[in-house]
């Protein structure tokens, strides 16, 4: 029971943090693209990679919550 609660809290809290991080990355990227439209391709690539990094942290949490569920 407690492990299930912990699993839910893990993915919930990390989801909150990771979403905020991704949103910030996207917002800053859009800002940069609006300011310098000629750098759009570069900014988009960097944004996708940065988002992949943040996403992998969210997936660590998913892994941990699966491990907690399997307990």
């Amino acid at each position, binding site marked *: 029971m407690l492990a299930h609660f912990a699993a839910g809290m893990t993915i919930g809290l990390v989801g909150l943090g990771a979403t905020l991080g991704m949103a910030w990355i996207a917002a800053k990227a859009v800002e940069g693209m609006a300011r310098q439209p000629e750098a759009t391709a570069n900014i988009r690539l960097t944004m996708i990679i940065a988002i992949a990094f943040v996403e*992998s942290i969210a*997936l660590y949490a*998913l*892994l941990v919550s*699966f491990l907690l569920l399997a307990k």
Partner: protein
Amino acid sequence: MEPGAEVRHIFWPLKIFNFDISITSSVVVIWLAALAVFLIAFLATRRLSLIPGRLQNIFEVIYEFLDSQTRDLFGDQSRLWLPFIVTLFCFVLVANLCGLLPEVYPINANINTTATLALFVFFVYHWAGIREKGIFNYLKSLLPQGIPIFIMPLMAVVEILAHLARPFSLAIRLFSNMTAGHMVGLTLISFIFMVKNIWFSALPVTGKVLISMFEVFVAFIQAYVFAYLASLYIGLAIKEEH
């Protein structure tokens, strides 16, 4: 439990000195992926022409893209290290895409495969640094310069931990990305068996199709991230001191 465990199959049980090196479906898929990369690369570069054919064009795009991304890191050693990075990229990409095929064991959703790749990168970038600077200078360059001597032991511990974290994060990143994709697909399909309604089942199937499309995208991104981080580590190891 890992996804795809039920399709794991031991083709040839093998044991040497208590080490289990059985030929499982995972090993077979790794061999097939490596063979596929080799064959495609061989066919693409067999007859190089100034006006590239279709296969050669694909490889030129990959090579030039990775070259443009890693030129700052490698500098004049680009010709030495870029083939390694491109090979790594192609293998991880083909392995990721193989995992999306039905009935094929998703080898990158197995921590053993990704940990092997990450350890390989770990040893290669240390070797690159030692090759470039010599072992003593390389070990010295691992520590930040110009700090008081009494902080040195603490910094050494921190640096060793940071270096050990690199292969760990490489392995876990690739593994968890691939596993999560398969887990989401499995969860979606399991909704069909929970609800048991033929009209409802259109929803999970649509979701699974969309997730699979997203997984193709993720396969490319993760292969690129893996290759880029490997080149970043090599680039940091061979970087000149300022």
